[in-house]
């Protein structure tokens, strides 16, 4: 995927003419090789230094940028409220001082694992081979390889002007085009799609969102929240079409041949678009894990310690399929979480694993999405909820939904209601409950309703 020239290994010195790519460089062996320099990989390196891990760490990034934060790409960065420098995780001085070697533009295409010992056990060491042939020997390996944007499979999807928004390069390319279009179609009514739609609408663009499903953000929030977002965004002037069926992307004519001009729907109507932004989810990057023979099932399968099926490789963040970390979650329930909070917490657990401390991943997942004037904060996971309570205060523009399973609150979607979000997150963290009955009155602070779970379970 990478089109730039990878940074060659001039710092490693020796060119070892071994292996299939004669002349390619071999780096000195590193204690821990982290493949992937986004949120989870970066956090793993940082947390390891915090836990006393003193071996050399090499952090490999595929992109030609210093490691940066992604969430702002569809929001503040697109809107020019922050620049690239603001998104950089750490200064170079930090990496140097902590003996963490950062390599940009390194795309690993193959892992060569060292043979098992006589007793059949592997010690976890091997060599990662980059696209340019550079070899990175390691004693332990961490896969923080994330996920990539799911591609649109439709006639015309290769036209110029069809863009994705996953990386800084994507965002820079999109920003460079801002002057060239008036009409944009956003394909996908999930978080990325809606955040980008709001950003572009705020810049005066004419925005149409085409969502294939029956409601917005269907994967992450409940129906009431979907409905709230639908109404709010329509009121601000974004054209949102649910259950939209696309037939093809229509090319322009004359000077605009080869560029997208619109989206044709199955009923024959064409929605004008000089830009089509696709936000239809992600695909976990499991290719390296598969090649290594690790268990893969919608992500790299890991245990509660972030360890993959070989018992030694750790996998963290978006790419990991792990046991549901929510305390009290049904035994055996597995999940793959795409969030900053998960990348951070999961990396911390992996750092403990790598230093021999067996901490299980347990926590209250949380998410946020800022869309124009709507600040959505989600606490917990809605998996398996059986009832909801809606708290709504239109005068103050606040809206929350609490989710319950068997009378116990398990999650909340909170829009412009940080106090609700905080109360639910804290209650979940302490194993407490917020009984459904009184929670519907938005005038009552949720904090005052919290009860211990055990007390609530005693029959009246």
């Amino acid at each position: 995927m990478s089109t730039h020239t990878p940074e060659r290994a001039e710092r490693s010195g020796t060119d070892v003419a071994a292996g299939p790519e004669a002349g390619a460089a071999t780096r000195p062996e590193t204690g821990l090789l982290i493949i992937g320099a986004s949120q989870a990989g970066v956090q793993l390196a940082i947390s390891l230094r915090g836990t006393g891990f003193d071996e050399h760490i090499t952090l490999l990034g595929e992109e030609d940028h210093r490691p940066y934060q992604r969430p702002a790409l569809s929001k503040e960065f697109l809107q020019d409220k922050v620049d690239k420098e603001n998104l950089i995780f750490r200064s170079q001085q930090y990496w140097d001082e902590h003996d963490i070697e950062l390599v940009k533009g390194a795309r690993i295409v193959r892992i060569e694992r060292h043979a098992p010992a006589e007793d059949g056990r592997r010690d976890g060491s091997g060599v990662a081979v980059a696209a340019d042939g550079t070899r990175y020997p390691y004693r332990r390996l961490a896969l923080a390889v994330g996920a990539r944007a799911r591609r649109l499979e439709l006639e015309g999807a290769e036209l110029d002007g069809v863009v994705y928004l996953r990386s800084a390069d994507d965002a820079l390319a999109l920003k460079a085009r801002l002057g060239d279009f008036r009409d944009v179609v956003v394909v996908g009514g999930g978080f990325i799609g809606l955040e980008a739609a709001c950003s572009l609408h705020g810049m005066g663009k004419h925005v149409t969102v085409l969502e294939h499903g029956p409601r917005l953000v269907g994967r992450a929030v409940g129906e009431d929240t979907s409905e709230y977002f639908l109404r709010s965004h329509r009121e601000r002037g974004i054209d949102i079409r649910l259950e939209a069926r696309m037939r093809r992307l229509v090319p322009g004519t004359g000077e605009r041949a080869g560029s997208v001009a619109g989206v044709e729907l199955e009923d024959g109507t064409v929605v004008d678009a000089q830009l089509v932004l696709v936000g239809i989810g992600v695909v976990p990057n499991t290719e390296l894990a598969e090649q290594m023979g690790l268990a893969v099932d919608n992500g790299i399968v890991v245990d509660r310690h972030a360890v993959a099926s070989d018992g030694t490789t750790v996998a963290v963040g978006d790419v990991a399929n792990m046991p549901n970390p929510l305390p009290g979650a049904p035994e055996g329930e597995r999940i793959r979480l795409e969030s900053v909070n998960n990348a951070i917490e999961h990396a911390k657990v992996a750092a403990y694993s790598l230093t021999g401390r067996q901490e299980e991943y347990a926590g209250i997942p949380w998410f946020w999405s800022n869309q124009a004037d709507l600040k959505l904060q989600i606490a917990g996971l809605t998996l398996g909820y059986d009832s909801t309570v809606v708290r709504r205060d239109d005068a103050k523009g606040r809206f929350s939904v609490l989710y319950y399973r068997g009378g116990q609150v398990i999650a909340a979607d909170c829009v412009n209601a940080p106090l609700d979000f905080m109360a639910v997150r804290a209650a979940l963290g302490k194993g407490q409950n917020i009984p459904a009955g009184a929670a519907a009155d938005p005038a009552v602070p949720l904090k005052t309703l919290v009860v211990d779970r055990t007390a609530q379970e005693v029959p009246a």
Partner: protein
Amino acid sequence: MPTIHYTDAAGETRDIEANVGDSVMETAVRNGVPGIVAECGGSLSCATCHVFVREDELEQLPGMSEMEDEMLYGTAVDREDCSRLSCQIKVTDGMELHVTTPETQV
């Protein structure tokens, strides 16, 4: 250059030269100041960049928004009168600010 003095809960201080326009949170994170997590990267969603501002320096800072005020009720260590979210404090020309980071942010 503006300087931010970060003191951790144990009393150890780090003095960081800051760029005008960056936030007190960004300055901390980029330099690896422990005690500031900033999960949300400054979009006022997580309350993990909580700091205590030295009392006599509080006045010179711009006031806080209602959202910041409410988020402060969710910090890991309870808020005090001098609590702020460091992502909401912009570094200004000549700023000399002393902040203390709480024992934990999560």
